[in-house]
């Protein structure tokens, strides 16, 4: 362990910033409990994925430069989202390929970036966050975190040590929920067909709470569950791991 506390820049992500500040506070608490010094730079907006996945390279790069400038001074950059963390870690370097001034800088930045839960388990070696919650939960593996960053066991290991919590795996927990960023607006009907299948699996799991590591996917699934009158509550995994569940769940509680 380093003598001083690792300095972590918390990249809150735009959806947490706008829709779900609880996740930001929960992330900060988890990082602090793990021994990190947490900073939240004001010069953050979004990781740039909406532009990146719409083919707008110029705006993506402008946003990426801004994120790198705001965060490269920290020991680590942590985001409570597999999708945004993967954007920073896996996709930023490619934006600067062949640019002598930026290429190395983007790569060094990329090396510091982590998704929250895997950072806690794999870098800070956290085994138990000390939380307890009486609930039967099911866990959705969001695509980018799962397939680009290999996040699968990490949240389950930490959840296993939450007192009172029982994990009920759903069928096809690793299948896309149909969110896909702008996809869910551009191809609304197809997105609906995909999330409809997901919600069937969530309901069939018998869990009374759905957790995942990405607010985008959670908003999509919560929105569908509530539209269908389900009483399943939806939260970001960080809220449960931090023991911060006093806020109403995403999209509210009840039917």
């Amino acid at each position, binding site marked *: 362990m380093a003598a001083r506390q690792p300095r972590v820049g918390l990249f809150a992500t735009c959806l947490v910033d706008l829709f779900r*500040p609880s996740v930001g506070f929960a992330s*900060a608490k988890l990082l602090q409990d793990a021994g990190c010094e947490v900073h939240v730079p004001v010069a953050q*907006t979004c990781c740039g994925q909406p532009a990146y996945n719409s*083919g707008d390279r110029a705006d993506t790069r402008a946003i990426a430069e801004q994120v790198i400038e705001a965060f490269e001074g920290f020991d680590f950059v942590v985001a409570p989202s597999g999708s945004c963390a993967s954007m920073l870690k896996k996709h930023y370097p490619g934006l600067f390929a062949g640019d002598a001034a930026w290429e190395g800088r983007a790569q060094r930045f990329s090396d510091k970036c982590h998704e929250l839960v895997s950072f806690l388990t794999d870098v800070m070696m956290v085994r138990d966050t000390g939380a307890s919650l009486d609930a039967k939960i099911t866990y959705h593996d969001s*695509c980018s975190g799962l397939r680009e960053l290999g996040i699968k066991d990490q949240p389950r290991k930490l959840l296993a040590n939450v007192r009172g919590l029982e994990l009920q795996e759903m069928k096809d927990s690793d299948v896309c929920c149909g969110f896909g960023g702008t996809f*869910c607006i551009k191809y609304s009907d*197809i997105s609906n067909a995909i999330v409809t299948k997901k919600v069937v699996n969530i309901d069939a799991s018998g869990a009374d709470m759905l957790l995942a590591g990405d607010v985008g996917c959670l908003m999509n699934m919560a929105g569908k569950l509530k539209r269908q009158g389900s009483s399943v509550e939806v939260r970001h995994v960080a809220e449960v791991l931090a023991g911060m569940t006093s806020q109403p769940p995403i999209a509210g509680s009840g039917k």
Partner: protein
Amino acid sequence: MELAAKHFKASAAKALVDVQLQKALGNVEKGFIGKRQKAAAALPEFDALRDNARDIKNHVLAHLDLYLEEYERKVTASGGIVHWAETAEDARRIVLEICQKAGARTVTKGKSMITEEIALNDHLSANGIEPVETDLGEYIIQLRGEHPSHIIAPAVHLNKEQVEGDFRRVHTHLPEGRDLSDPVSLLGEAREVLRQRYFAADVGITGANFLIAETGTSVIVTNEGNGDLTQTLGKIHVVVASIEKIVPTLEDTSQILRVLARSATGQDMSVYTTFSTGPKRADDPDGPDQYHVVLLDNGRSAMLGTEYQDMLRCIRCGACMNHCPVYHAVGGHAYGSVYPGPMGAVLTPSLNGIEETGQLPNASTFCGRCEAVCPMRIPLPKMMRHWREREFERNLTPLTGRYGLKFWAFFAKRPKLYRLAVSFGVPLLSVFGGSSKRFRSLPFAGGWTRHRDLPAPEGRTFLQAWAQREALKQEPAQ
């Protein structure tokens, strides 16, 4: 077939409410995925084989000209004839000439996506030659006047009741009261009908899964043996294959074969793997008198050296579509192109241009499951994104989307302005959300709220709330 990719949204909307189709698509999810998973898990070196397979094809693509010339020399040496076809039209003309020269009236066909790509059946029919598809799935869709909805399971969009209806409609020479209630009886009837056609055919046309440069051999894999009958019973065997099917050696072929069937159907090997080298030799018991290979480019050489080159590694196993949530939702026909699913979303714009096909690479959640199962490790989402970039550069994307994106990007690039805008907007939206904490509908968010509620923001933004908390912490110290 006519390219209808620009109608993707409308076709998808129809597919989503097609009860029969949705029932059939359930089989794709149930059937292929578990079988592939089992087959991959049973082979410890599966992932290492995928790396090998990728490396073999990368090597071929880096030296494609050399291997093609070597292949042609070997085919010629074994008594076959290679025809070079730069375009689909060239390939159609060459095949027709071979058939006409032989005085052919009917040709049998093994399953071949390349002949779909060049629309060979229509061309032969228009010139008085009857093409007969011999793969069961292909035969069924030929009876229905349809195109394949899947590259290895062309009739996967159909249910057995629909097939029974088609057989009763077309096979009118058979007794009306016969039992066609299960797949086995359907298969038996197709086999009986097709058997007569093999003997009557003058030419047999197949595709190729591999063309081996070392030996001048073409290889097909099938599960029904129809390909073997097609290519051995006719007087002439015509192979139609695209240039990237080349592999250097027999050893390379066996390496890739080990990942092909496992990825496709979860079999260790397909039931039949058939190697064809040249026409019948003097002491061969059977085989065709003539062996032709039509080598099709049709836009592929233009992909070499571009960001789409990796697509040429594709061995057409279908794993990407078998695992695609969008394909599961809408099926193959909605894509309006010969090649559906993720591989089609990359290949179709490469072959047909992005102008008419832009919908395809956009209709993906980028969930990455296709890349995760691709035996050739083709980075499909990355290449779909490259197509979106080409589209965006050329201003081909819809105006509303572009303006919306530019409006958002203007703020996203200016953190101070962004903070100002969201610090007013978000709390306001939160208040409107009320006690239910969600919206059933919201102006400008119809794309979202048509199908699901929109969770309301909690209150202030995280950065506002964080700054306030930090300020409070500082106060006692001051």
